[in-house]
């Protein structure tokens, strides 16, 4: 099942095409005409959809659980949308519902696993 999944990756963010949005998810309101799905800790860089650059018929909607800061799912309808980041080339994502996950790394100094942040 996992092997057939369609994935897109921009740096530390992985978007996996999925079927639908669980009922436990709440949609979030875009801010400054952007849907930000992840933000760097100190750099201010962020992975985002810029809504004012979308075709008129395309919409991007972020979904998250009540306690999450950023969306854990994103829904693109009406066409494709582009994901932007300061240090990575843009990705054009076809319409659909995507699960958002993150790359992890092992910190051998503290001997702990953590999320990669770029």
């Amino acid at each position, binding site marked *: 099942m*996992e092997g057939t999944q369609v994935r897109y990756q921009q740096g530390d963010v992985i978007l996996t095409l999925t079927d639908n949005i669980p009922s436990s998810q709440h949609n979030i309101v875009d801010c400054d005409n952007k849907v930000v799905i992840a933000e760097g800790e100190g750099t201010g860089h962020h992975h985002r959809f810029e809504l004012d650059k979308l075709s008129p018929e395309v919409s991007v909607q972020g979904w998250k659980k009540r306690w999450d800061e950023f969306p854990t799912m994103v829904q693109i309808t009406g066409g494709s949308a582009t994901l932007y980041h300061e240090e990575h080339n843009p990705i054009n994502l076809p319409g659909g519902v995507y699960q958002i996950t993150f790359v992890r790394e092992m910190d051998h100094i503290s001997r702990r696993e953590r999320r990669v942040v770029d």
Partner: protein
Amino acid sequence: MNNLLRFYDTVMKEKVGYIHTYGINTCKHAIFIKMSNKQVNMYISAYASTDNNPLIKLYDNHLIITAKTGAWHYKDLERHGLMMNIHWRWERNGNIVTFPNVETIPFVYMKVSYNSSLLTKIPKKIQKAYDDLIETNRQERNAASRSNYHNKQAMIRLNEAEQTGDYNKYMRMDDVFKLHNVTDRRNVIAHFGMDTIIATLDHKLVDVDTVGNNYYELIEIDIPDNGELTGYRKGTYLRMVNPSTEEIHFEGVPNYEVPPPPGNRIGWSNRIEANTVKAALAWRNDNLGGNYIPPRILT
């Protein structure tokens, strides 16, 4: 040891099969049973459960420590004055028992006099295991001392660097591996950059692979660690190129270790499935079973 002799004398006055109970604490009892006209066995009952093996077999002029149960029972006997002048302790890697005349690791059926001297000759195998334990403990203590010393020295340098703001003058790149405090380490990493620090260390190339159009190297680095006996420990990293900016960077992945036996899941999530780039990428992206699923587009 006189206390045990007192129990022996008390029980010996009774018939074979006589049971005498002595409360060690609220949940642990010593049970003395007269087995014959020459022998009394002492069992331990803890939390209403009694071990089948006697802790001690008592005779008129000596006793036998069976050492078939946990050492903690003997420590309790020592703590409550039932086993005087015999000291049990855990030291780093194993139990050690000290008699007035000799020190050893516990072994089964230790014959001891009532003045607490070990009468049994220590078997060669036990003596070697004891010598190995003492040597390992010595090396570990020295390693810990070295680690503490280098931590202190690095902290002195870090204080000077923070007061003057001149990290380049006072700090060394490998101080990040010497400091014990995580926040201090983070400050040093923030100054030098982790990629730069890793690039200065000796490394071994483990695997190379090209996935999509992206070239990866899996490398093993000897991370200086004064707390280790060797002075180093292994750290595995993926060396990769950002396909968008062509910058090189390193990301840590767990070390590859021989898989645990079937059914034993200890450490299952803290290792990569194989010493390969693809297994490291699979762990990095949280793909199940170590099978890497390349993204359709990667930027």
